[in-house]
């Protein structure tokens, strides 16, 4: 039995301790905003925050996330009030299909905490998530907009 602290709530889960955090979040806890894209930490669809750090949850065993503060896309807004990154995403109409955008928003939210005004180069080296619809131009615009907000 593992105890997880997700979005400020405690969850008890009975799973193999090697199970990737992604699948515990999705299948055991039922928060499906965090997506599966590759399973090998390549695409970033599964990005969550562990102690505030953007982490690809498909490659983290649940055992190592125990007792740590985990935030998923569902925990980013304050009730109905979107975070500034989410708001910038809405204002700039970033998403196309939207599948990668949970991970994008989580990765960018973590980036702006450590680098509040990122340059294009800093964005390029930090945001390596894959978007097959090709929303990168809107992602960049929205990052700069969120940084100004």
């Amino acid at each position, binding site marked *: 039995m593992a105890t997880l602290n997700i979005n400020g709530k405690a969850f008890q889960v009975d799973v*193999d301790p090697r199970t*990737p955090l992604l*699948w515990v979040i999705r299948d055991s806890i039922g928060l499906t905003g965090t997506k*599966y894209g590759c399973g090998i930490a390549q695409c970033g669809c599964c990005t969550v925050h562990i102690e505030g750090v953007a982490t690809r949850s498909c490659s983290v065993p649940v055992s190592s996330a125990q007792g740590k503060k985990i935030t998923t896309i569902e925990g980013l807004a304050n009730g109905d009030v*979107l975070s500034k990154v989410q708001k910038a995403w809405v204002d700039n*109409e970033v998403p196309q299909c939207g599948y990668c955008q949970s991970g994008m928003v989580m990765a960018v939210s973590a980036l702006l905490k450590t680098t509040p005004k990122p340059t294009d180069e800093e964005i390029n080296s930090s945001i*390596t*998530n894959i978007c097959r619809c090709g*929303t990168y131009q809107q992602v960049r615009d929205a990052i700069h907009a969120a940084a100004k907000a």
Partner: protein
Amino acid sequence: MNDMPKFDRRSFLVGVAAAGGGLSLGFNTFGSDALAAEATPEVNAWVVVKPDDSVVIRVVRPDMGQGSLTGLSQLVAEELECDWNKVSTEYPTPGQNLARKRVWGAMNSTGSQAIRQSQEYVRKGGAAARMMLMQAAANEWKVPVEELAVSKGVITHKKSGKKTTYGKVAEAAAKLEPPKDIKLKSPKDWTIAGKSPKRFDTRNKVTGKHMFGIDTKLPGMLVASVRDCPVNGGKVKSFDASKVEGMRGVKKVVAVGETGVAVVADTFWNAKQACYALPIEWDVGSNGNVSSASIAEFLKEGLTAEKAFIGNKQGDAPAAIAGAARKIEATYSYPFQNHACMEPMNATALWTENECKVWAPTQNAEAALAEVIATSGLPAPKCDVIKTELGGGFGRRGRTDFVRQAVQIAKQMPGTPIKLIWTREEDMTHCSYHPITQCKMSAGLDDKGNVTGIHMRISGQSIIASLMPERLENGMDGATFQGLSEKSPEGAFGYNIPNILIDHAMRNTHLTAGFWRGVNANHNAIYVESFIDELAHATKTDPLEFRRKLLKPKQFAVINAAAQKAGYGKPLPKGHFHGLSSMHTFGSYVAACAEVSVENGQVRIHRIVGATNPGHAVHPGMIERQVAGSFVYGLSALFYGECTVKNGAVEQTNFDSYNVIRMDEMPKVDVIVMPDFEFWGGVGEPTISAAAPAVLNAIFAATGKRIRNFPLMNQSLA
């Protein structure tokens, strides 16, 4: 492609629809999916107005990110004259469509046709509803309908000062006969269409609430992981379920047809662990010997084969080239590629003896329903498909193989909903791939440098032969000639050259070819637009001026617009070079001008200007995003896209071996949307074809090297 051939099963569906007058009863079991109309009478199939004046617009073409949900709603709302701020949408199911004799028409979003192929009837649907609502008000006030005016859902009678709203007359309107004579607005008078309102679905996509197929949750649901034979055409010889049945969470191990095995478990992770631990012996058959090298040899033979299907013939190109003062030749090739949708293939099925219902991220819900009917063994009225949201589609989700598998598994566990999720590895190795082709281009020039003849020989795979062979015409796949022939779907060869021969030596491989965003226009554009650039350089003519002489006017207009905006011909930063391309495909005229530098063999794209004339632009903001996004798709293919074959199986299994472009390689994209209101063309796919050749031609300008084999990662520019 425009007339993406109808699935044979669809004809079957239509037949069922025509025969089944009382089918609607069968759908009452699916009460949770009731349309809004069941609570409020619909004005017509497209429009429901509720008593509070809110408007529900029915949309049946899936939105996989391209924005058709918003765009089609704009078209209905434009004619309806309702308040855009009160519009919401709903998707009828293919079962409901079938029960109503396909009142909503085709339900596929494929071939960049969601808007252009339904624009007329959805606008008429909106207009008819408006006419009925106004007639209902006129009847109530006993005045001629001609004396009424409407704006934003408020109907007024100026003479008497009376006012009412759509919500108040909707019930009476629903009882009226639909009008027969419907006149549509001129697009030049549009106030909702042609603008760029916020799309409907953004907020849910940034809060994790947008429900993709993979997110489906049902009471008592189990999750399945599948492995299909790694070699297409092979099958399962045997598997030893006893080795994994005791593993954590495992409920059942089942055969999936003759070619696959699935493990059903409580969670995906447990299902996957057992599925990949399961000993399976495969019978790969004769395809186990196929390799990329053997496929390349097979295609190479086609470049000079005597027999070929002729897609475009004007004059006598071989004679013109043979007798020319100068002859230019070049041979190109283009690889297999995977769509690599971000959301891996998945579907959820519930099968009982009485009904079969599937939740699926599908681009073609009617084809999915046909698959469910065929696989479930149940009559059509007992089957339905709920279209979930789609995490990308790009043509891959027009297929129904994952739907079939989900039903095959669910049938073996009656009453239990089964969510089948492919691993990325399964997805990468079981695609319907971008067709593989080679191409030999030949041209003759006279002593003044005029092109007297051109011969384009394509050798390679046919999508139609792979997916719907019944649509071949005397063996020929007309779709192969996309963008090359007046006869091919909606894309003519753009150049005025006196002698033209474009032919196809069909060489099909054991891998399934499929519709891959942009389809055959992708490689056709690379072959034609690279070679035209070769001819321009061979005659020492500026590539834009060379095209000005030869291109048909609408196509030249877009390439010229892109060139002008990019500053073509004006001084660029040191080491930067321009490349151009254009294409007529999916009914639209598209062009690109790329600005590129090459340093130490590294290509950097600084900027691309795209121009598109799609005839009509329903949502210009989304068109801009589609163009920018499709450049990313096309350039990912150009730089990295390649699926290779070893021992009959695809070697690339995940994004570590099948790379795609990310933020750091994204060029700045500027988009010119230049509709001329003379036709209706597509948007989601055509511009892809312009991206790669523009970059290749810029690379040549920068380095003097002509790359003719792809992807670029295999080529040296140092």
